[in-house]
């Protein structure tokens, strides 16, 4: 089995001299040599760009005479653009990387490098002439791109806010200054994000000052004000930390390369700017699809005007045609899509970066991707698709804020308002008498109903509860909501991920979920929770009654576990899950989960959004289908420059995941394939869908 990954390394010899080499030795061998020789080492993986089907990778050019670094922003398309111009031996000398210097060509003379530079979308070129593989730092040639994007928005700073805020605010603005400079060269489409962050910072500061200046003697109000101030400070701290990550990860590896080492020791030479760009493009893609209909606006403007009869009694819940994906009446518009236009107005794009410590995680203003995606994205455990789940969390947070009114604008002390309780009580006690409720109210009631049912399901009783036992007080409701809110949110998130990103491909979704979950700790301690979420998600949209829905979902899960095991992914959790499928507690929790996710399906599915995510009309590899198995992109095909090939990052990642699970990847080098995936996704235009 061939290794296609190469390592470009640099050892200092002092006095501005560096030994440069490309080798196919593993990084461990390079590191061992460096440790034995007590020398410094900077290195990054580089990947031969032009492979031939069924053939070994091109040989490493010997001797190494020069390295030309091209800082293309769309390397996938640039590889397609330069390919017809390259002679046979040159094809073997072109590599792509995961850094900002996204393409490099070895052993070409300066005039050839300058000619290739003219073909690139971004003209910055750094050229290392080598003498006996030695680079003299004075000899490095840098040709700049005369064009520079600029941000037109003027940011007015708010200084002198006091030590509590200044520590964060200064760091935020300092980061914005650094990033602005870097983005003008390497990520101009992100300048708007920086402007949004500056505006958000300004808003948070204003809010803080307003609350701080308010004087009240009422203890409750004072406590509440304090809580809000802490929340603002916490938000500023989060923004500040996220921007710092972006500075260290996103700007290193730029030209001059010798002066800009990366904080990632295993990418110390060229950095991870390209991979970071991929993670960001993936996030922006979904954000732009969702921006067509603002969920908060749909709820606050659209759902407050429509009434609906909602099922109350979960014990008798039967689903039905209204919840089916394949409903008999194909022409009925989804509830979420009807009732006018609700585009997002002032959204703040999520800051996206890599984190070894946090892994895949979401917070109010940021998304982190596990650092493992730099080296093992092609493995089911670390697929970029996991990012979609985190992005959905952000959307679901907005939905919950709209339903329960707990955003920045709201100023209240309790988790639920008295009105929430009264609405719920009235509806709950009606026991499904056919009374119509406003849709927003009905949805919050359904969530609260789920929370109460979950409380009961945790303690299965052999005899029916008495009338008194079934009554719910406001404090009971608040406690139940506090205990199960996260479970409810997870069901919302799972639906969004399953429906929008995975296009309801049940086995693919389930295998992807469990491949990633066995790599983290939580499912080991709360297995039933994770199992039930999976089952409810796969069952949603079937319209089946609870028993057959559970049976169907169990079959899908059993198949998926077998698929995982066949593709070499094993975990003791799998056997444990198989036994849990016959546990009555699992079924007891499944019922309310199925009930809730069905309501989510009915009121949050959106053709407008899913159509934009699928991008079937634009993506040339989709072949008119959302199926991951028919997607035709492969590692021998490059971006088509004339039309700036549009690749849906979602469909592309799903296809890659599907191939790696079925063992159909044309080569077996995981690092090469990982780098290819990030390079392709990093080359997608901003806001393409």
């Amino acid at each position, binding site marked *: 089995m061939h290794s296609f990954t190469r390592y470009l390394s640099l050892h200092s010899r002092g006095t501005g001299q560096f030994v440069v080499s490309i080798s196919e030795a593993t990084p461990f061998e390079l590191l061992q040599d460096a440790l034995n020789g007590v020398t410094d080492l900077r290195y990054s993986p580089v990947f031969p760009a032009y492979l031939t*089907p069924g053939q070994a990778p091109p040989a490493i050019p010997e001797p190494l005479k020069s390295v030309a670094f091209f800082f293309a922003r769309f390397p996938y398309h640039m590889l397609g653009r330069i390919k017809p111009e*390259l002679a046979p031996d040159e*094809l073997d000398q072109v590599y792509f990387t995961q850094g900002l210097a996204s393409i490099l060509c070895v052993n070409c003379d300066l005039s050839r490098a300058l000619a290739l530079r003219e073909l690139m979308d971004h003209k910055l070129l750094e050229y290392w002439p080598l003498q006996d593989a030695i680079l003299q730092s004075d000899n490095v040639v840098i040709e700049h791109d005369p064009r520079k994007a600029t941000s037109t928005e003027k940011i007015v700073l708010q200084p002198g806010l006091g030590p509590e805020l200044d520590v964060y605010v200064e760091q935020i603005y300092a980061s914005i200054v650094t990033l602005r400079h870097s983005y003008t060269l390497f990520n101009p489409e992100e300048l708007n994000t920086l402007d949004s962050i500056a505006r958000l910072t300004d808003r948070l500061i204003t809010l803080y000052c307003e609350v701080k200046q308010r004087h009240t003697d009422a203890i409750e109000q004072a406590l509440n004000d304090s809580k809000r101030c802490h929340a603002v400070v916490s938000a500023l701290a989060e923004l500040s930390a996220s921007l710092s990550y972006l500075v260290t990860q996103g700007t290193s590896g730029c030209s001059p390369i010798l002066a800009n080492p990366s904080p990632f020791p295993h990418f110390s030479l060229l950095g991870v700017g390209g991979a970071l760009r991929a993670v960001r493009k993936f996030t922006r893609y979904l954000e732009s699809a969702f921006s067509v209909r603002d969920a908060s606006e749909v709820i606050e403007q659209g759902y407050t005007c429509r009434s609906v009869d909602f099922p109350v009694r979960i014990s008798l819940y039967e689903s039905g045609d209204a919840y089916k994906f394949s409903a008999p009446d*194909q022409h009925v518009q989804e509830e979420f899509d009807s009732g006018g236009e609700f585009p997002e107005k002032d959204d703040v794009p999520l800051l996206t970066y890599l984190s070894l410590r946090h892994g895949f995680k979401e917070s109010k203003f940021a998304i982190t991707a596990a650092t493992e995606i730099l080296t093992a994205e092609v493995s089911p455990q670390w697929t970029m698709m996991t990012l979609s789940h985190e992005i959905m969390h952000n959307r679901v947070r907005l939905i919950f804020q709209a339903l329960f009114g707990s955003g920045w604008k709201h100023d209240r002390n309790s988790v639920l308002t008295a009105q929430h309780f009264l609405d719920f009580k009235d509806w709950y006690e009606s026991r499904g008498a056919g009374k119509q409720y406003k849709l927003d109210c009905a949805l919050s009631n359904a969530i609260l109903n789920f929370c109460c049912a979950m409380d009961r399901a945790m303690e299965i009783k052999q005899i029916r509860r008495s009338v008194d036992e079934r009554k719910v007080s406001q404090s009971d409701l608040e406690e139940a909501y506090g205990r199960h809110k996260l479970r409810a949110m997870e069901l919302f998130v799972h639906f969004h991920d399953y429906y929008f990103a995975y296009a309801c491909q049940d086995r693919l979704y389930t295998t992807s979920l469990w491949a990633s979950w066995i790599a983290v700790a939580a499912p080991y301690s709360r297995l039933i929770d994770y199992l039930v979420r999976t089952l409810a998600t796969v069952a949603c949209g079937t319209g089946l009654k609870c028993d057959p829905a559970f049976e169907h979902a169990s079959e899908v899960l059993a198949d998926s576990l077998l698929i995982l095991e066949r593709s070499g992914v094993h975990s003791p959790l799998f056997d444990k899950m198989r036994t849990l499928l016959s546990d009555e507690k699992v079924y007891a929790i499944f019922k309310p989960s199925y009930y809730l996710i069905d309501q989510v399906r009915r009121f949050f599915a959106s053709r407008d959004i*899913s159509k934009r995510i699928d991008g079937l009309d634009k993506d040339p590899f989709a072949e008119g*289908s959302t199926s991951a198995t*028919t997607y*035709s992109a492969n590692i021998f095909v490059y971006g088509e420059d004339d039309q700036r090939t549009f690749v849906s990052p979602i469909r592309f990642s799903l296809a890659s995941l599907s191939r790696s699970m079925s063992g159909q990847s044309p080569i077996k080098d995981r690092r090469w394939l990982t780098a290819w995936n990030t390079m392709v996704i990093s080359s997608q235009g901003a806001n393409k869908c």
Partner: protein
Amino acid sequence: MLKPDLCSRTYTAEVLRTKGNAELIADTIGRLTTERRSPEQITGPGVDPVVIMHSFIASQIRFHRPVRAGAVPTEEIPVVPRTKLIRGKEHYLYDLLLARCGLDVMVAVPFHALAQIFFSQADRALAGKRVVYEKLDITKMVMQLGKSGVADVSTSESRRKLEIGLTRCQLSYSDPERRSCDLQLVSLSGAHLGKTDVYQYVVEPVIDSNASSLAVTPVLLGFSLYADGIKKTSATTDRHGNFKLWVGPGATRVERLFALLDGIETIEGIVSTTANVPILQSRTIEGVEEGQE
């Protein structure tokens, strides 16, 4: 007259366009082959001459199934495919048809699996010669041809009325709302699809995206060139620049393929080029057989 051994098969083809010398391109590809025959030149009034070359790809891999042979192999009825000892090893010889016209070069081989190997080799051999591959935007083509499935492509130089008509259409269906696949694929073929009600019905969502809640995407398109209503040649293509055609005895249809492409080129915005080797994305078209009529 050209006599391809496997003239009854559906050939897999690609059309290359060069910024430089088409003869050099054809010659470079020809060097990868053996038993090169003398090229034939076909000229006509008002059109670029078409030069067709017939040679053989020597392969140790067997792509054919039955072996056809006369009772006594003769010059006229050879064993098909022929074999040849190269460096002591027996190789099968498979037809390669290479035609050039203006800046375009067409390469065709009789087996899809052979094309998957040979076209990649040819691409490598052509590196640095600024070669790109022609492909058709078949969605746009369906839209431009409309429900009638016909376009008049006569030019001022044409002496006859030239028309392009659809003979094959494969549509992929997706439902972004229901996420279900009650209908996935519809495939139609016939002498003149535009004259049928069913074609007019199924292409409506392609022509007008508001006509259906389903996303309908053409993934294969077959078309013919008609001169004064008489079918002259036909081919099928996918979205990536792979072509399937029946060459027939004498390979006259190869020559006419250029006329067909010229005709299509008169419809605005249909033809584009790509640096990607089309055969590397040919799953959809792989099993397609072209008719001989």
